[in-house]
């Protein structure tokens, strides 16, 4: 299980290949990459703030919950903070299991919990000014399905 919280950009393809090579006995590897969405062509930058210390603990707990629930051969979470531009990778999740159902479900579980339980906050900067991205009720509701 690997968790990385970092400012630097990462290469999702290279990460996925390294992850796939590292897992033993897996028949299925699922990956998800989150990308900075543009705001009608106006996004100058996205600033991601996080709570250093709590972030790593919160993600480790989420990954721990996923490994307790599904039969995983491996899990990878990378989440960036700092200054990002439209089209940049924000984060990545990869899971591996013997059969695909565990890997798919665990990846969705990780995404749902990372969204509302890992202490990150996003601010969008456009020509019209700065605005904090607000949490959506759907994000909180998504947790109830687990």
């Amino acid at each position, binding site marked *: 299980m690997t968790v990385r919280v970092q400012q630097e950009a990462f290469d999702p393809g290279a990460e996925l290949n390294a992850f796939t090579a590292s897992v033993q006995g897996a028949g299925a590897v699922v990956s*998800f*990459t*989150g*990308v900075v*969405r543009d705001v009608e062509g106006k996004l100058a930058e996205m600033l991601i*703030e996080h*709570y250093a*210390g*709590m972030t790593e*603990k*919160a993600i480790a707990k989420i990954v721990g919950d996923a490994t307790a629930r599904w039969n995983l051969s491996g899990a990878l979470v990378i*989440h960036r903070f700092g200054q990002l531009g439209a089209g940049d990778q*924000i*984060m990545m999740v990869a899971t591996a299991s013997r059969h695909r159902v565990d890997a798919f479900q665990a990846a969705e579980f990780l*995404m749902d919990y*990372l*969204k*509302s*339980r*890992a*202490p*990150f*906050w*996003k*601010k969008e900067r456009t020509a019209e000014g700065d605005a*904090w*991205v*607000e*949490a959506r009720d759907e*994000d*909180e509701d998504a947790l109830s399905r687990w």
Partner: protein
Amino acid sequence: MDVLYFAWVRERIGVPRDSIETNAVTVNDLIEELRARGEEYQAAFEDIRALRVAIDQELSEFDAPLSGAREVAFFPPMTGGE
């Protein structure tokens, strides 16, 4: 005790953290003390329903006891992921 602020809570208060001496029993008591510090704090703690709290880096509740807590953080609902 260290009190940390993130995102717009930090912006409204104007500093990322305070070091304070407090006898507050619960998070709610601590918020009452912080509100008394001035209008920036009143603006940040105007609507508690818009906030989340962590005690020693674990998500918690506003009526939770603070006994032994070293670090309390206030922030809006989190927006990680894509």
